[in-house]
């Protein structure tokens, strides 16, 4: 963190002022928390259930009990056994454990890893890091809606493949992959593969059952399904070999050292419990808000492209649109002035303004990728929120367009 930024950010915030209303739609970058899940975490702290769950005193036992029940809830939601869940502190960590940990345990001579070209960077980067120890990484292309090209996928699976990783739901464009079909293709061509899926954006959005899908590993993240931060999880099917990638004192689990963050896990389980209990209602609500948002934008602003599929093949919370002739980050700031918090596929967070690899992989033009805006609705949003957003989007876009040297002659 460069030390002169604080003052600037303070000025930014001051100049920004407090908007009349706030609608947080940046669930992609950091998830909102169900109030019940937050309360569950706080109560865990107050009730000594932060204690080390493998220590022999009442507080430890209660912590163990709470951890175990939380694990049953989480495991149950994805059709797994409690013993098949390993906790990390984030989805990023769980993806690293899945990929690097499986490679560390890989005694076979097979050295090929197959992923889709639109995986999260916490899948792609660990897989790339294995190149220097002799692994080969194959990125299978996707079609214009983000679905894995089945033929290319099938061709990529040969006898040398050790691990396959394809996300159940894409984090940026909401593509609901035909995971079951891909698993079948893969196992058909090579029964020895380990199939990992990043299910971070699937949880609570689509039915997700590890037995039904026949996957070997699945990554979950608390804050992406309305639990508190500080908990990720990796489902590892009983019998699949994974080695730890960090080292230290063990508590109840072998694969991630240190004391479990029991309060965060309790909050995670509370979120999962709510998602489980209200699954159909939440999905219906999100889908309604999603479609309201997509249709409202498409009908009130010109030159807009929807990124990703429509209908049931799209995650119910995902809205991703490209505003042509606009740069995305400018839009995020413009909307922020109205209290609408969204993110852009071209967020200026890297030195080079490389646009989202996901959108490029779809075959989007650069200017389409740069003008993309990602919004995620949640069960906590209301129709009033969406109406507020729709009231402000057209004028925001037209202002940004008025500044641009590109006025539609390109397009």
């Amino acid at each position: 963190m460069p030390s002169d930024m604080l003052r600037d950010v303070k000025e930014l915030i001051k100049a920004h002022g407090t908007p009349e209303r706030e609608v947080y739609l940046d669930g992609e970058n950091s998830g909102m928390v169900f109030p019940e899940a937050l309360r569950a975490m706080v109560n865990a702290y107050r009730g000594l259930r932060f204690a080390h769950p493998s220590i022999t005193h009442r507080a430890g036992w209660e912590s163990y009990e709470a951890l175990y029940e939380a694990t049953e809830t989480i495991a149950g939601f994805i059709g797994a056994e409690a013993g098949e869940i390993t906790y990390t502190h984030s989805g990023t960590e769980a993806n690293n454990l899945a990929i690097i940990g499986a490679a560390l345990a890989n005694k076979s001579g097979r050295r090929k890893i197959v992923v889709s070209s639109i995986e999260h960077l916490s899948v792609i980067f660990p897989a790339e890091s294995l190149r220097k120890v002799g692994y080969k990484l194959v990125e299978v292309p996707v079609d214009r809606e983000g679905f894995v090209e089945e033929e290319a996928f099938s061709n990529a699976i040969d006898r040398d493949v050790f691990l396959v990783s394809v996300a159940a739901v894409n984090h940026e464009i909401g593509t609901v992959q035909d995971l079951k079909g891909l698993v079948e293709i893969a196992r058909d061509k090579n029964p020895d593969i380990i199939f990992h899926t990043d299910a971070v954006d699937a949880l609570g959005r689509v039915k997700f059952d590890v037995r039904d899908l026949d996957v070997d590993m699945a990554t979950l993240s608390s804050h992406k399904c309305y639990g508190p931060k500080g908990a990720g999880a990796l489902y590892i099917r009983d019998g699949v070999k994974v080695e730890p990638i960090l080292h230290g004192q063990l508590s109840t689990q072998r694969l991630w050292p240190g004391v479990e963050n029991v309060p965060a896990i309790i909050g995670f389980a509370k979120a999962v419990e709510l998602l489980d209990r209200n699954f159909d209602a939440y999905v219906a609500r999100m889908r309604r808000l999603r479609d309201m948002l997509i249709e409202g934008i498409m009908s009130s602003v010109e030159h807009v492209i929807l990124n990703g599929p429509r209908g049931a093949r799209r995650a119910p919370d995902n809205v991703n649109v490209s505003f042509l002739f606009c740069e995305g980050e400018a839009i995020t700031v413009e909307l922020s002035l109205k209290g609408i918090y969204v993110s852009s596929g071209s967020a200026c967070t890297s030195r080079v303004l490389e646009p989202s690899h996901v959108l490029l992989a779809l075959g989007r033009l650069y200017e389409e990728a740069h003008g993309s805006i990602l919004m995620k609705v949640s069960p906590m949003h209301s129709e009033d929120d969406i109406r507020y957003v729709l009231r402000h989007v057209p004028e925001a876009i037209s202002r940004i367009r008025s500044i641009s040297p590109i006025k539609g002659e390109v397009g």
Partner: protein
Amino acid sequence: MLELFRNPKNLGRMDDANATATAGSLACGDMIAIYLKIDEKTQVIEKAQFESYGCAANIAAASLLTEMVKGKPLEEAWKISWVDISEELGGLPPIKYHCGVLAVGALRRAIRAYFKNREKPDWLPEGPTPEEKHALEEEKLMEMLARRYKIQVGKRG
């Protein structure tokens, strides 16, 4: 910075400009167009305007730069560096440096364009300055990425 983003000065195309240039590109995700009206006799910048396809910092940087050069002789305008822009804006974060650099790059290209068919003054360096180089590099980098992703930049359909 946010104030300049919200209410940018000198925004828009200029019909009577006698020096114009852009830096960056659509592919970069950042593009600045600079329009100058230069007094032929005194070589003082009478008017300066801009357009920007870029983030808030980009817009603010271009707005500020056009404000700074107004009324300045070209020689002085040439000397403005991205550091001056950054300081005026209250310190750009490092990931935003390139916005200042791009704005200055566009300005210098416009000044060079002005002298294309005119006698070059002594103070105008032969080779490109760091800002001009940077603008070029960024454009090239994106071309390279475009090739990697087999993507065409430009007209659709």
